[in-house]
């Protein structure tokens, strides 16, 4: 495998000196098999140590290195430079405030993750002496794909509704709530409904489906959100048209 000269245009922003972001171009000699993260690391190590960005595992499991590469949300460690021709534009993940360079402010996302109560709230708490919560493979499959989220926030960057309505709880958080709602060991759906069936919950989604398209783990948050909408709608009409029915 040989070398390739790559032109990278990276959005820079220094909160201590800049009033707004600006693009900076780097010419990097890369190996053909590199990913964009390798190019960024090479820039930081040999050209510009001030370039700031998040990364960790370099194998698409930690979710740290999400950024816009040619206007598409991608994990930098999964964006092979051989897929790109010409100048490659690297920007921080869309729809998040920029902290510095490619680092975004993710407080809003972290807050939303907490709000959906992403933990088992058992219907009946079992004493340890009573043994484990048993689950069949079928019951596992009901929620397994929604448990694969690595919190990389590519879905939030892809979602135009989140960009237009920052209060929107968003794909990953709703998919995570759905993961617990679908878990046979859980009994906390009513509590999570306060967040995901609120106006800023699933109802801001218009099923663009971009979230599921960019998700590196194939969680399909779009599907999860539609299922939340349908269940919430059935609940609402049942409650209002047949209030005598107990849950």
């Amino acid at each position, binding site marked *: 495998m040989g070398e390739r000269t790559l032109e990278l245009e990276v959005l820079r922003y220094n909160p201590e000196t800049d009033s707004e972001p600006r693009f900076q171009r780097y010419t990097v000699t890369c190996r053909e098999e590199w990913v964009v993260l390798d190019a960024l690391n090479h820039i930081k190590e040999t050209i510009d140590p001030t370039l700031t960005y998040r990364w960790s595992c370099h194998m698409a499991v930690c979710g740290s290195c999400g950024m816009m590469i040619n206007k598409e949300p991608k994990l930098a460690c999964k964006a092979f430079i051989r897929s790109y021709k010409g100048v490659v534009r690297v920007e921080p993940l869309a729809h998040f405030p920029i902290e510095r360079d490619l680092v975004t402010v993710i407080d809003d996302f972290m807050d939303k993750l907490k709000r959906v109560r992403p933990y088992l709230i058992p219907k009946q708490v079992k004493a340890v002496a009573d043994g484990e919560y048993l689950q069949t493979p079928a019951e596992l499959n009901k929620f397994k794909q929604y448990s694969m989220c690595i919190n990389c926030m590519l879905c939030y960057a892809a979602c*135009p*509704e989140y960009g*237009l*309505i920052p209060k929107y709880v968003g794909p990953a958080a709703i998919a995570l709530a759905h993961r617990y709602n679908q878990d046979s060991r859980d009994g906390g759906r009513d509590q999570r*409904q*306060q*967040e995901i*069936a*609120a*106006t*800023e*919950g699933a*109802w801001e989604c*218009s099923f663009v489906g971009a979230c599921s398209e960019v998700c590196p783990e194939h969680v399909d948050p779009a599907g999860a959100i539609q299922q939340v*909408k*349908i269940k*919430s*709608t059935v*609940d*609402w*009409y049942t409650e209002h048209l047949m209030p005598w029915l107990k849950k």
Partner: protein
Amino acid sequence: MAISNKPIVWGPFAAGGTLTAFLTPVLILLTLLAALGHAPDLLAYDRLQAFAGHWLAKLAIAGTVFLSLWSAAHRLRITCCDLGIRADILVATIVYAVALAGTGASVLYLLRI
């Protein structure tokens, strides 16, 4: 945050979206044939009047008009949001009013057939 009442507007939207997905293309095809001068037999006055005279057909037609207009209205409301129009309450009022007016009108006409 409180549980939203969005299902009031979303339920008919989802039902209407499903109905129009199954039904609207073939119905457009029928009137397209009429526009091309090959009106299908059902669109002859006597046959259509007989068909729409039946109370079950009236119910079905009114339901189809309501769900079709409502789902189109709701989608248009969302599209306006997507295009950056922030006056959501105003847009919603207008689109749903048109849907309900169209439904009301169709009920009146159906009662006269």
